């Protein structure tokens, strides 16, 4: 039985906005979600907000209204938004409140993330010697995957070109210029085999979602979208993970695989039921790997699926219809709620130029990032 519904989604565009704070962007996204749900901030009984750069994203109440609501801040790496969403949904399931909001906001400096490795449970020398970097982890993961499953560089370029093409149709996206596969392959090599235009960039933006108890959703909308599952998992011993200088001989699936299996089971759905997909494309290789880790194809099938255009908006398995992270960039706290925003628009058939054809019923989103944390959400009409 459906217990939680999404009745409003809102977004502050992703990009770079000098002079606008993360909190101001969060307020704008929240107002947009409230307007979409047809409610006011006073109707929101509780909230969760995620951010990496802002210690207290709940300060958004300074702009939205000091109503005294219970408001909890969360941070969980690249799965921050998934954690905000899961906590908000669970709060409704507990029965204490009927209507709540999950939001995320961030404002990162350009360039790869830099942090203190000690805060991630690895020693200082790991950062001092130039190993504490996420891009080179993703490069090494896809390098091995390409070797194991015969994936070629043109396939990586196809992923990136598709995401730029989709982003060009998305007015909220950061990079809205189409790029050819050739231009992507010939852009400067950053971490072999990944070139500059195969990577997403940390940037700025905010997103918000209004959730309510499913039984009352029809008070607000004739077409609620139900949150069928929202799951967060962390790495198990033996998984090959970011910010980890050691992998034991024993092997384990990635936290994405664990989160995905749990989400399908909770939702009572399988990959064959999914009509539109948002995957963590930190880089083009990550999208390729995540296609298999989330059950949408077998390892190695990506090469043929992509060359046939299968993951395009009109394909059998549309992936990252709003341009994904490659085109939108990654404000960590907001990224996962941007995915939910896009899935809700797609299921409402309100995505304009980038609408997937037919009547999509089930949407799927996945986040993955440091230090080995994954989130998966499944929504349906």
């Amino acid at each position, binding site marked *: 039985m459906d217990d939680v519904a999404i009745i409003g989604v809102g977004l502050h565009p992703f990009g770079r906005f000098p002079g606008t704070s993360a909190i101001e962007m969060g307020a704008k996204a929240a107002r947009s979600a409230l307007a979409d749900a047809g409610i006011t901030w006073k109707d929101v009984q509780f909230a969760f907000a995620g951010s990496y750069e802002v210690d207290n994203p709940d300060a958004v109440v300074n702009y939205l209204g000091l109503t005294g609501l219970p408001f909890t801040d969360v941070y969980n790496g690249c799965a921050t938004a998934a954690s905000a969403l899961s906590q908000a949904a669970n709060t409704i399931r507990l029965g204490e409140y009927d209507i709540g909001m999950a939001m995320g906001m961030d404002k990162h400096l350009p360039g790869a993330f830099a942090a203190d490795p000690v805060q991630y449970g690895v020693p200082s020398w790991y950062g001092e010697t130039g190993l504490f970097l996420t891009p*080179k982890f993703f490069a090494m993961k896809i390098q091995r995957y390409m070797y194991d499953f015969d994936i070629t560089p043109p396939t990586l370029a196809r992923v990136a070109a598709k995401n730029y093409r989709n982003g060009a149709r998305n007015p909220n996206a950061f990079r809205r210029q189409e790029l050819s596969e050739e231009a992507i392959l010939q852009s400067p090599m950053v971490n072999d085999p990944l070139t500059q235009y195969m990577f997403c960039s940390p940037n700025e933006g905010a997103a918000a979602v209004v959730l309510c108890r499913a039984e009352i959703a029809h008070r607000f909308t004739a077409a609620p979208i139900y949150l069928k599952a929202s799951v967060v998992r962390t790495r198990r*011993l033996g998984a090959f993970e970011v910010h980890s200088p050691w992998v*034991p001989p024993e092997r384990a699936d990635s936290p994405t695989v664990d989160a995905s299996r749990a989400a399908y089971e909770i939702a009572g759905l399988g990959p064959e039921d999914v009509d539109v997909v948002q995957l963590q494309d930190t880089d083009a290789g990550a999208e390729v790997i995540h296609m298999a880790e989330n059950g949408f194809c077998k390892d190695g099938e990506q090469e043929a699926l992509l060359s046939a255009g299968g993951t395009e908006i009109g394909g059998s398995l549309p992936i990252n219809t709003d341009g994904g992270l490659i085109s939108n960039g990654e404000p960590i706290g907001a990224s996962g709620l941007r995915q939910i925003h896009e899935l809700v628009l797609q299921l409402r058939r309100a995505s304009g130029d980038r609408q997937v054809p037919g009547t999509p019923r089930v949407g799927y989103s996945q986040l993955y990032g440091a230090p080995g944390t994954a989130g998966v959400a499944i929504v349906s009409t």
Partner: protein
Amino acid sequence: MKPQRCVAQGLFEWPSDEPTVSGSRCDSCSFVTFPAQDACPRCGAVATTPIQLARTGTLWTWTRQRFQPKNPPYIGTEPASEFQPYGVGFIELPEGRIEARIAGDIDQELRIGMPMELTVVPFATDADGTEVLTYAFRPIES
């Protein structure tokens, strides 16, 4: 010769003609970790014994770090124009897979499965001129 120091005490044994990297083995379940730590990530025991890891293995995956990491946490202080890209890989040892810089020319051919051996390389210079050393793996000449 310039004065030299290891980037972290206890990370590897040096000076030595055959340097080795230090890890630890769980006293309860024998699980090996690198770097050495006092608690076991498999069974949670808090008693471990220091060990030295094998100094040869095979390349499991690799990339090249072509942009200068941000300082901090990186301690290289060279201007961006003088940054020297370096290889990075995971080397499969009998005890597990270890992440390391790859020593040698940036354009040298790297292949998954190629034999590798441990070495020690300078990678940065302190303000007083002291060279900072870290462990790395290099392809074994065939």
